[in-house]
């Protein structure tokens, strides 16, 4: 049985905009699952459906259900989910801009009832992962750079010591070196602490490199799924998501001809 399963979920925004048209996916325990797809495919919506943050955006789940550790969770509050070990890193950073970086991280530990020392240890761990944050620990998050905010958001989620993390575009706006590091951290947590991940990512190549399994979402539907290495060998995936065709990787300079993305229609 899978750790997290999304079954045939349909989501409507504002009563009229149908965004997810029956999405199903599974995350087995201790695995990293990548959710890929173009802009507007519904990746973030899927993640928000799982974490029930959707309600705050006037989105409704009209069909389907979500299960976590064998329990239905669609009626729970985000806070209860965090307590059960499911954290989300939202797209677009969402740091508390008036709080300092350190305070931001500490709010991440809100659900924990641990001692000061333990919190301190977690904090140190995050600073170890992101030394840049340590330097900027006393700055108000609102004034830090885009990438620093992204690190802060990830670090904040780690502070809750979750057993499952929903990561929405962790690499966005991050320098390549740190991107590698972030994925390294993901792998690290996954293998050492058995944390499961569902990550929505645009950077397909790196996502598939680290993930065990992948789903491709287009227009609110899952159009392809499979083991990560299988996906990265698929010709279509190669061409459309990895930017390598049979002839090898094309330079961005040569993309001058009118072409349309081939659509999968379920």
């Amino acid at each position, binding site marked *: 049985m899978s750790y997290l399963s999304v079954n045939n979920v349909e989501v409507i925004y504002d009563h009229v905009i149908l965004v997810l048209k029956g999405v199903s996916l599974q995350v087995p325990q201790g695995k990293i699952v990548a959710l890929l797809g173009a802009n507007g495919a519904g990746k973030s919506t899927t993640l928000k459906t799982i974490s029930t*943050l959707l309600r705050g955006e006037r989105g409704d789940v009209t069909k389907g259900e979500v299960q976590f550790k064998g329990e239905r969770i669609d009626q729970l509050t985000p*806070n209860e989910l965090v307590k059960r070990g499911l954290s989300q890193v939202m797209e677009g950073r969402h740091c508390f801009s008036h709080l300092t970086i350190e305070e931001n991280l500490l709010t991440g530990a809100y659900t924990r009832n641990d001692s000061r020392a333990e919190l301190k240890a977690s904090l140190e761990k995050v600073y170890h992962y992101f030394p840049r944050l340590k330097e900027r620990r006393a700055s108000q998050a609102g004034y830090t750079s885009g990438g620093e905010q992204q690190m802060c958001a990830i670090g904040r989620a780690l502070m809750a010591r979750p057993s499952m993390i929903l990561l929405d575009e962790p690499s966005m706006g991050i320098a390549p070196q740190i991107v590698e590091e972030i994925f390294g951290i993901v792998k690290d947590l996954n293998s050492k602490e058995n944390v499961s991940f569902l990550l929505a990512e645009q950077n397909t190549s790196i996502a598939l490199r680290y993930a065990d399994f992948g789903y491709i979402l287009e227009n609110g539907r899952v159009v392809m799924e499979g083991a990560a290495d299988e996906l990265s060998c698929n010709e279509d995936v190669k061409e459309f998501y990895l930017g390598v065709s049979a002839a090898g990787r094309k330079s961005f300079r040569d993309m001058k001809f009118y072409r349309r993305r081939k659509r999968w229609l379920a």
Partner: protein
Amino acid sequence: MNLNFFFEVLIGGLLSGVMYALVAIGFVLIYKASGVFNFAQGAMVYFAALTCVGVMEKFGVSLWIAVPVTVAVMIALGAAVERVVLRPLVNQPEIALFMATIGLAFFLEGLAQLMWGAQVRKLELPIEDVPSQYLMDHYNILVSQFDIMAAAVCGLLVITLALLFSKTKVGRALRAVADDHQAAQAVGIPLKRIWAVLWAVAGLVALVAGMLWGARNGVQFALTFVALKALPVLILGGFTSMPGAIVGGLIIGASEKLAEVYIGPMVGGGIEGWFPYVLALLFLLVRPEGLFGEKIIRRI
């Protein structure tokens, strides 16, 4: 210029300022912790005070029983507000939440009058509102003993609440909520419980304010207007600062009294209505987020 009189005006103003601050604190509490500009604070003051007197009157009980009953009512009110008004409006534009509190204000005003009637009531606290004889005899300065007590109560409240907000976990969570509802939820801050508790605390602050103002001016509908006196205090002190509420209150109280007494007669008087606002506005031009308010972060 008569110096003694000047000091009387000054002290009277400072003490009135404390009374404004008492109402302002309730605002700050909610604004700071949820980003909601709570227009219903005035109505809550009225509701709390009227409930307290209403209970005393209807059931013939003493103040010492009525107060705990009212406390219970205000806690229930906090929970209800969270459930009915705030929860469905999570993550909505500030202005929608602001408007909802206006709706709440109407509702509370209607409810209070429906339950207890619209008559004006008196509320007698164990301390009388007469000049303190001691100060009169020793310093020849006229200060009401009631005002001195009110100042003490207010100071106590501010210190407690400021401590709560400063470095505690809950305080941090409250500030986080004010910044971003959605992200706060995502990190596991229980918005529901926090808001319910917060509104209950604001309700208690309203009760304290209501009892002091009610004892001063009678428990009547006009209590809902004291919020108007608190607004300039708020903008001057900053919407997000407890100490700001106190300092703002003192400045507004003192300067409006001095202005009315010394400038008023030259321009036909009655400038107390707008003077505090203009003063606060001038302050804002120098510091757009009030004296102690959090800087508004604008970065692209």
